[in-house]
């Protein structure tokens, strides 16, 4: 077969501008039958926008889309589905109030005599999820499940469109653990062998090399190039994405001498038998100023629950927590902020950004709260703070006044992080701070965490990426099944040992 026969989709000369941003400029993209095609680029490069143009969420300013040799104008997501394009968008776009089964099948529910056949719907949904090795009660509402399960449901929904010729996955793996990711990859390979074309967006470079056949790289809304994965080195890929060499970012803390347990002073925070029934078994934890403690474990192992307890979102029903020598009696985020504790939450949509407020307002929000609402922060000062963090974290936005909802996913994540950094906390809890963030910014954030510790702040670092935890932390707490298993420091801090501990072998 000639190569042109294999091409199922071509997008030519696509441009799309938003006020103040040229999100896409004259971008070409093509997709072949039965290939997995990675779309790569920094946060704000225009990946999601390209997907939105293809699926009729945004109309392109210029450009032509050819599907199966015919020019098409995709009018709406519904139209895209009818054309055989099935999409998992970057933010999980499902309805938390509906059951898992409905979320997977709504719009295509099995019906009998015009009525929805709930029994069959539940059975079908269960079966689809089982193919991804997710065994859950599909009659519960989606909102009662974790982000990872919701993501799996979103993927299941996209897979369900049996007639799909093109499957689009926009950062599907950012909230999945390795096992779930491998399940997804298995399904992707199967679809590929059946001739489905898959567009895959991720910031995990290893995953791209594991599964993608070709890579298209975007930078600042422009096409950098299309490459065969086999012919492109990691290094070349990264410098294509960033437009600069990454050597300078290399190994954040390999050079950093880990501190031995030589803290003479009292711990800043001390948990004794602290626990909450059903969330986390009682645990002890000492946290000293000037150190980074990593939490390692699978999703749902109790990492986020520890963070919620220490920040006062949940109240413990067991044990005591001491902060700066005094026993904590009042558990609330507000009291924690007043004490100098900050938490950058895992689920930015539910617990983080205020979509309609501007970048500036989002950044000063927590700071304002810690100062009390009536001590006003002058707008010049606010802008100054916002500008500082926009620069520090390299947040891509036309101005600090841009509503946060208009930022790309990764840049929204950075805004949340900036909010908590701005409170100048003594203890910073970071729950998955680098989710959905590009390689360059990831390294910057890791550097920042280490620098904060060196300034004398304490930090709890939570991440599903083990090497990231290892790189930043002085100590690692390992969790399994909502229980603290052990604490590793020094030479014990290596991937193999941690992984064995997590797996319980």
């Amino acid at each position: 077969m000639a190569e042109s026969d294999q091409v199922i989709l071509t997008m030519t000369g696509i441009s799309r501008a938003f006020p103040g941003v040229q999100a896409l400029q004259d971008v070409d993209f093509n997709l072949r039958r039965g290939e997995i095609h990675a779309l790569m680029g920094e946060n704000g490069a225009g990946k999601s926008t390209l997907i939105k143009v293809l699926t009729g969420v945004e109309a392109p300013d210029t450009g032509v889309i050819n599907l199966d040799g015919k020019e098409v104008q995709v009018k709406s997501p519904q139209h895209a589905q009818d054309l055989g394009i099935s999409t998992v968008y970057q933010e999980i776009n499902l309805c938390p109030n509906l059951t898992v089964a409905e979320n997977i099948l709504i719009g295509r529910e099995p019906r009998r005599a015009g009525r929805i056949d709930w029994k069959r719907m539940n059975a079908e949904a269960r079966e689809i999820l089982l193919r991804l090795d997710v065994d859950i009660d599909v009659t519960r509402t989606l909102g009662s499940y974790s982000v990872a399960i919701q993501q799996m449901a979103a993927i299941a929904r996209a897979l369900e469109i049996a007639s799909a010729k093109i499957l689009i996955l926009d950062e599907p793996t950012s909230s999945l653990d390795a096992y779930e990711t491998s399940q997804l990859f298995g399904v992707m390979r199967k679809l590929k062998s059946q001739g489905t074309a898959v567009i895959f967006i991720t910031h995990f470079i290893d995953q791209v090399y594991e599964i993608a056949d070709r890579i298209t790289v975007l930078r600042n809304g422009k096409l950098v190039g299309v490459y065969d994965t086999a012919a492109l080195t990691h290094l070349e890929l990264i410098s294509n994405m960033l437009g600069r060499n990454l050597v300078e970012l290399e190994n954040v803390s390999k050079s950093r001498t880990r501190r031995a347990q030589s803290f003479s002073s009292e711990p800043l925070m001390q948990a004794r038998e602290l626990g909450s029934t059903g969330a986390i078994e009682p645990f002890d934890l000492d946290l000293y100023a000037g150190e980074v403690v990593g939490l390692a474990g699978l999703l749902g192992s109790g990492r986020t629950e520890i963070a919620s307890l220490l920040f006062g979102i949940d109240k413990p029903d067991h044990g005591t927590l001491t902060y700066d020598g005094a026993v904590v009696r009042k558990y609330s985020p507000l009291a924690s902020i007043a004490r100098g504790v900050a938490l950058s939450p895992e689920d930015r949509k539910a617990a983080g950004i205020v979509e309609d407020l501007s970048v500036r307002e989002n950044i000063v929000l927590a700071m304002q709260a810690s100062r009390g609402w009536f001590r006003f922060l002058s707008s010049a000062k606010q802008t100054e703070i916002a500008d500082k963090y926009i620069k520090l974290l390299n947040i891509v936005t036309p101005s600090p006044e841009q509503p946060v909802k208009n930022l790309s996913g990764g840049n929204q994540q950075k805004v949340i992080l900036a909010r908590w950094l701005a409170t100048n906390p003594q203890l910073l809890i970071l729950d998955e701070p680098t989710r959905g963030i590009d390689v360059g910014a990831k390294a910057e954030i890791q550097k920042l965490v280490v620098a904060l510790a060196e300034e004398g702040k304490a930090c709890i670092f939570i991440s599903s990426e083990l090497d990231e935890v290892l790189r930043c932390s002085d100590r690692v707490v390992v969790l399994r099944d909502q229980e603290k298993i052990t604490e590793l420091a020094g030479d014990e801090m290596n991937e193999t040992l941690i992984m064995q501990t997590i797996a319980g072998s």
Partner: protein
Amino acid sequence: MNRSFKIDRKFVPLLATVGLFTIGYILGAIKYPGMARPQTFFNLFIDNAFLLIAATGLTLVIISGGIDLSVGAVIALTSVVAADLMENVGLSSLVVMPLMLLMGAAFGALMGGIIHYFKVQPFIVTLAGMFFARGMAFFVSLDAITITDPIYRSLSLARIHLIGKAFVSVHVIVAFVVLAVFMYLAHLTRFGRTVYAMGGNEQSARLMGLNVGRTKVMVYTLGGFCSALAGLVFSNNLLSGHGLYANGLEMEAIAAVIIGGTLLTGGVGYVFGTMFGVLVNGLIQVLIIFNGELSSWWTRIVIGLLTLVFILVQSTFTSWQRRQAGIRPTRKRSDAVATTSDGAVVPDTPTS
């Protein structure tokens, strides 16, 4: 599937209302034997049939994440226009009734269209609709018009006997048909499920490829239809039409919907629950009448408090549910591996 005998948590608010009504009625019947008579119970439905119809239409609107403030005004407008057409124009009620339903549906469709296509808040659009409809009612006639149409009159007086001498009116039958149709729509059709999806997250519903625009217009059309039908029942009851009728009724309907377990923010609720919301409202009135000493304003006070209580219960309920989030399936431990992939750091051997 071995489903244990456990009540699904999402039914808790609904069951609370059903329980409240049942216990309230039984206690009332013990204190006031008159309430134990079947006819008293049936009167509850007869007197509130129009409210039940209006609130049923409103339930779907609220579940979709919207609101309709024009309910009371459309009831008044329907009563006046119907009376005017029958008395002053001389049309038969058999022509007037379908015409009124059409008018209500068109009015609702117009509001829905403006809400969807011009992206205006439902609150604003239906507020404008409320003023417009109320104003139009007085434009048609400043005074009350008495209806003399014979068919209309016989409809009003018709009794359908159920147990012994106890009876219900035609209105009750109409209300139950509406209720049944809406329950079917809400739970067993794609349209109904799209309404729930929209109420949960409209943007998501659109990205899921659901037809949000058509559904929204449809929801308000049905709402307008129900308001007009409620207006017909209302005017048939009183055999007259007046622009002052059903003043502030939309608030009573909203309260009934909330007490019936529907979330004011949309996405969660039951059409069936609304019936009990309406019945609780009616029960309080009955209790006050039997008591004989309390002012009828107590109805409003109690309904106000109940609405507040229900909203509070629901909000604690939802936040509690949210805290239950984070459930993951169990999986064989041997499969478990932690993610190690990253990429922030360039590997020493680039192509490893």
